């Protein structure tokens, strides 16, 4: 499919007939073919050998800064419809205060990209799903807008689109009657770029969000997690989120 000079009319037939190592085909019945992508030659952008995650250092996150929220909104085109009660909120700044000591700490909360996501468990259509690289997404093609996932999410990470939307970002399709949430900027990650919130936090000079591959023991995020104490939000639920916090 990468060869642009190839004729698509031939290509679709060739995919099935001359599949070779990358595509294994199995004919179940005349006209019904089961295709399995895999093997060393498969080049899907979602890499099963990786698990993308974030490490948020609440100690570095400034109380008055919301650069990550603004960047996410600009990148994905949510918010700002003038109806704050129903507007989507993919990422929000949350301030915690310890009542006994008075210590205040602020950190962004978005989809935690759980390893065992409750939103995926409850979805009746299979629209809520987890990619092989750990990113949890909504397939809006089959989302019926029932909002079970919003109820199931312990982090209030998902939003329902109440109003008709036009002029969406080309990389972030969003529509009325579907549920949406942080995608870990999957369109950027697939093209080898870091999420918008990570970029904006770095540009704002805080470096409070560290992005990386949790499966790679040599990655900066894995090393930081190994060296310093960190926590998952609602750790008691055992969801093993891909987003973790330090100095909370």
């Amino acid at each position, binding site marked *: *499919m*990468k060869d*642009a*000079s190839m*004729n*698509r*009319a031939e290509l*679709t037939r060739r995919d099935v007939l001359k599949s070779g190592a990358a595509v294994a085909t199995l004919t179940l019945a005349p006209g019904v073919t089961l295709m399995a*992508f895999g093997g060393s030659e498969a080049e*899907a*952008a*979602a890499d099963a050998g990786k698990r993308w995650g974030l490490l948020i250092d609440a100690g570095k996150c400034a109380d008055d800064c919301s650069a990550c929220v603004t960047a996410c909104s600009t990148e994905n085109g949510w918010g700002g419809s003038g109806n704050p009660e129903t507007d989507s909120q993919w990422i929000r700044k949350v301030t915690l205060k310890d009542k006994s000591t008075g210590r205040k700490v602020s950190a962004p909360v978005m989809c935690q990209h759980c390893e065992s996501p409750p939103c995926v468990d409850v979805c009746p259509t299979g629209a809520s*799903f987890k*990619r*092989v*690289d750990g990113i949890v*997404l909504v*397939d*809006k*093609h089959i989302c019926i807008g029932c909002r079970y996932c919003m109820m199931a999410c312990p982090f209030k990470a998902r939003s329902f689109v109440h109003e*008709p*939307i*036009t*002029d*969406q*970002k*080309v*990389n972030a*399709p*969003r*529509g*009325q*009657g*579907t549920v949406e949430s942080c995608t870990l900027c*999957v*369109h*950027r*990650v*697939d*093209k*080898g*770029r*870091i999420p918008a919130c*990570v*970029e904006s936090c*770095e540009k704002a000079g805080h470096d409070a969000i*560290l*992005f*990386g591959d949790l499966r790679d023991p*040599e*990655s*900066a995020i894995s090393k930081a997690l190994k060296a310093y104490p960190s926590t998952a939000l609602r750790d008691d639920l055992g969801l093993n989120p891909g987003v973790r916090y330090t100095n909370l």
Partner: protein
Amino acid sequence: MKRLFAILFLLSGLTGSAAFADSSSSLLPAIPQATGEPHPEGNEYWRRHHMELLKHDRDLTLRDGERDIDASLGQCFTCHAVTDDAGEPVTVESEKHFCRVCHDYAAVQVDCFMCHRSTPSEDDLGQAMTSSTKPDESSIAEYLKRVGNGQ
């Protein structure tokens, strides 16, 4: 019954051709002219199969993250954008929109644009990425170097 239909069809054909013989309009939709290179498979193939191609590829993109597919809905409007009198690309709200011209004629509703934008995007990430040759600050590789990956 069959004969009746045949006669009706013949009549409608006759009156149709008589009525529109000297007029520029036709009963068939006037398909807007596209820019850019024509599809190598030919227009007939695309007219019949575009929905299958888009539907198959949408799952590959969304579920497997395959974004190098050379036919995406967003890319359609690189060539198939219709502009209004002011030179701005029209949205699917307009009857002149490329998709609507045929879909209105065939009375087939398109749901794509409930979520997808129906006009070309000014900030097409794909184009920005391919046109840039210098190392991108926001690339994962550059970022990992900055945060001291693997050291």
